[in-house]
C-alpha cells in the first residue's frame, strides 16, 4: 500500500501514475485524466489557468486517499496529482489512479478520488476564451470537512 499526492506546475505523467499504481498482487489499475476542453458552456476556450492552495490541497488529497483506502482496502496504491499554472487545450490538469487486487476497487476508488477532489480541494480555474476574455469559473462553496 502506498499513496502519492502532489500539486505541481509541471506536466503530469500518466506513465508515472501507472508505474506507481502496480504491484505483483494487483490485477487491476484504473486511471483518470482530466484535460482542458476547447469549449465550455458554448464558449470557445483557448486555455485555463489553475490556481490552488498547495499545502491545503495536498492535505485534502491525502484525506481523500485515506478515505478511499478505508473504504476499498488497505492494499490499494493511490495516486492523485493536480497541475497548476496556465494549460492549453488538451493538457492534463489532473490524474488520479488506483491499483488493487481486483478491478471493482480500482474503478470505485478512482472515481471517488475525482469526485471528492472536485468538491473539496482548494483549486480554482480561470478560463481564457478565444475572444480574449477571461473568467473565473463558478464552483462549489467549501465547507469545513473532517
Amino acid at each position, binding site marked *: 500500500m502506498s499513496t502519492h499526492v502532489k500539486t505541481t506546475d509541471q506536466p503530469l505523467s500518466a506513465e508515472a501514475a501507472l508505474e506507481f499504481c502496480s504491484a505483483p498482487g494487483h490485477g487491476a489499475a484504473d486511471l483518470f485524466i482530466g484535460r482542458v476542453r476547447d469549449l465550455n458552456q458554448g464558449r470557445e476556450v483557448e486555455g485555463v489557468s489553475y490556481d490552488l*492552495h498547495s499545502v491545503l490541497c495536498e492535505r485534502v488529497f491525502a484525506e481523500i486517499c485515506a478515505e478511499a483506502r478505508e473504504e476499498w482496502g488497505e492494499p490499494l496504491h493511490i495516486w492523485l496529482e493536480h497541475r497548476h499554472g496556465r494549460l492549453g487545450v488538451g493538457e492534463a490538469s489532473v490524474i488520479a489512479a488506483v491499483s488493487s487486487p481486483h478491478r471493482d476497487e480500482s474503478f470505485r476508488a478512482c472515481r471517488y478520488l475525482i469526485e471528492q477532489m472536485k468538491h473539496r480541494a482548494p483549486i480554482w480555474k480561470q478560463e481564457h476564451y478565444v475572444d480574449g476574455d477571461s473568467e473565473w469559473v463558478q464552483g462549489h462553496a467549501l465547507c469545513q470537512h473532517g
Partner: protein
Amino acid sequence: MSQQVEVRLFGAFRQYSRDAAIAVTLPESATVTNLREAFADALEDDNARALLKASAFATDEAVLDEDDSVPEHGRISILPPVCGG
C-alpha cells in the same frame, strides 16, 4: 491589543489585490466571524463582497468554522467556491 492578519487570496479574489493578499486588523481573540466582517470592510468591490459570502477562511491545515478563533500564528487564506479538475 490588536493583531494584524494577512489574508491570502486565491482564485477570483486575486483580481482585487496585486499582492495576492489583503491585511486586516482584528482584536485579540477574534473569531472567524470578526475576520469575515473586517475583510468585507477591506474589500472595495461589491462583486468581491458577494463572492465573500460563498467563500471560506482556512489555515494551511483546515477550513475554519465561523465560530473558530482566528489563530494568532499561521497563515490565513480566503477560499472562494472551488472547481478543480
